[in-house]
């Protein structure tokens, strides 16, 4: 059992996500940064998709009610164990009564706290992920709150202490170039509009959340109207409403919508969108579908290949 002493601004339970319900308007949810989420689970000996905590900009303060094993990954935030600095991206063994505290993110937005055995909230439609707008999953469909006591699943025998090698820890910050496939409505924009989208840099706005990241930069001009009759919205869809400013849609997105979509950010670059802080800038680079599929395969293989290092 984990006792939440302070939840941080928005901390939710997320597992691999809820699939098969978008045709009923229910998005998949799940972690925004799958790479960091999966590695947190591996560090504590869990299956890749076990339910963990995702925090936003500032981490929670948690007390172990029973001995347990945790790992913190994702956004670069300071971690303390009983007020002494502790390593992130590393397996940590907690005794009953130990308190961990995660501070403000220096880079990145979302961090993950995995606990051996996973967080054992009841699954809803096959998933423990929290969908905040739909008040579904996680802890009664809401973010975790002060004094919540999070039940844990049966943990495997005390996992070995391991750490993620530094080359497999993503670096946030800078001005990432995101790979996109143009479409499905790229033909609804002027050539100048597409050139602006691919040539400019776009600033992340504070109104961004798990539904979508709002951006501001060079105006993307429509050729004929910004509204379409509603169609489905894929993960990473770049929607451009009438003001010409793009919105990249993430895991809690609306399932359908009526704005034109100029492109789709490739799934392997979604974490880099979701980890960009307000004020940080992003760029877009077009690739074709075959290249996108090849890069996805490489990205999946790289994650599968990560070898956790044993530590004493």
């Amino acid at each position, binding site marked *: 059992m984990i006792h939440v002493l302070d939840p941080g601004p928005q901390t939710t339970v997320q597992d691999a996500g809820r699939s098969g319900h978008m*045709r*009923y*308007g*229910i998005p998949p949810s799940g972690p925004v940064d799958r790479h960091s989420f999966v590695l947190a689970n591996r560090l504590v000996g869990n299956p890749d998709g076990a339910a963990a905590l995702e925090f936003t900009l500032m981490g929670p303060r948690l007390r172990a009610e029973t001995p347990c094993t945790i790992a913190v990954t994702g956004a670069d935030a300071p971690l303390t164990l009983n007020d002494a600095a502790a390593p992130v991206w590393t397996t940590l063994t907690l005794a009953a009564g130990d308190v961990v505290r995660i501070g403000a993110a220096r880079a990145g937005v979302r961090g993950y706290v995995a606990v051996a055995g996973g967080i054992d909230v009841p699954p809803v439609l096959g998933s423990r992920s929290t969908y905040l707008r739909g008040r579904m999953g996680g802890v009664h469909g809401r973010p975790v709150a002060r004094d919540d006591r999070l039940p844990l699943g049966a943990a495997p025998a005390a996992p070995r202490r391991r750490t993620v090698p530094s080359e497999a820890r993503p670096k946030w910050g800078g001005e990432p170039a995101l790979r996109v496939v143009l479409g499905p409505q790229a033909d609804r924009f002027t050539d100048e509009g597409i050139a602006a989208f691919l040539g400019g840099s776009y600033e992340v706005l504070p109104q961004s959340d798990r539904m979508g990241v709002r951006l501001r930069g060079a105006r993307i001009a429509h050729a004929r109207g910004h509204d379409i009759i*509603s169609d489905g*919205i*894929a993960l990473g869809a770049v929607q451009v409403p009438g003001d010409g400013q793009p919105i990249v849609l993430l895991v809690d997105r609306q399932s359908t919508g009526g704005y034109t979509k100029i492109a789709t950010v490739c799934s392997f670059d979604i974490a880099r969108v979701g980890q960009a802080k307000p004020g940080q800038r992003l760029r877009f680079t077009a690739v074709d579908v075959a290249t996108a599929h090849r890069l996805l395969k490489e990205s999946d293989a790289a994650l599968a290949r990560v070898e956790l290092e044993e530590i004493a």
Partner: protein
Amino acid sequence: MLVELGEGISVDVNTRVRALEYLIAQKAVPGVVETVPTYSALLVYYDPSIVGYDGLCGQLAALAEQATTTAMPPAREVELPCCYEGELGPDVEAAAQRLELSVDELVRLHEGAEYLVYFIGFTPGLPYMTGAPERLTIARLDNPRVKVPAGSVAIGGIQCCIYPVESPGGFWLLGRTPVRLYDPEASEPILLKPGDRVRFRRIERREYNDIAERVAAGRFRPVIR
């Protein structure tokens, strides 16, 4: 992959969209993970480690040829009680005035029609429907509401929708159903499905309150045939 089966909002085109979705599920096309039907297109999520883009295009194009009404099982008919009175139907008088109808005529036309659920989208369980007589075609509100109460039954353009959760909205609110279209606590959280036929049954305020109580206690199921 977005498969477009036509243009615009029409029963024919949308029927082909839903038929294609049905065929994909029936044939269990390898690599297809999830599908989202809308008015005239089907969004197909697929796993490129199982099926490539060109291969899937070919398979879906072949299935699209067979996608017609006859390919699908019969539609369900769902009857939803709806109260058009007082604060439950805050726009009913203004809409009647705009359409140059009496309130009673407006309500009779609205509850007398059968509505087709083209698809569910935007928020959990929200049905996109048409079916109202042409006489009820109405431009959307000039000033969309920031908060529309859950259960509101509304019209805009040629469409009719029901808001399952409190959300913003630009349609005219004619009434409210006490039935929950989305209940995250239920074993089946979503009431309506793409392809359903919906009818409204006019109820008075007393019956609305009564059904609302039974819904809250988990003792009410709408009539589904």
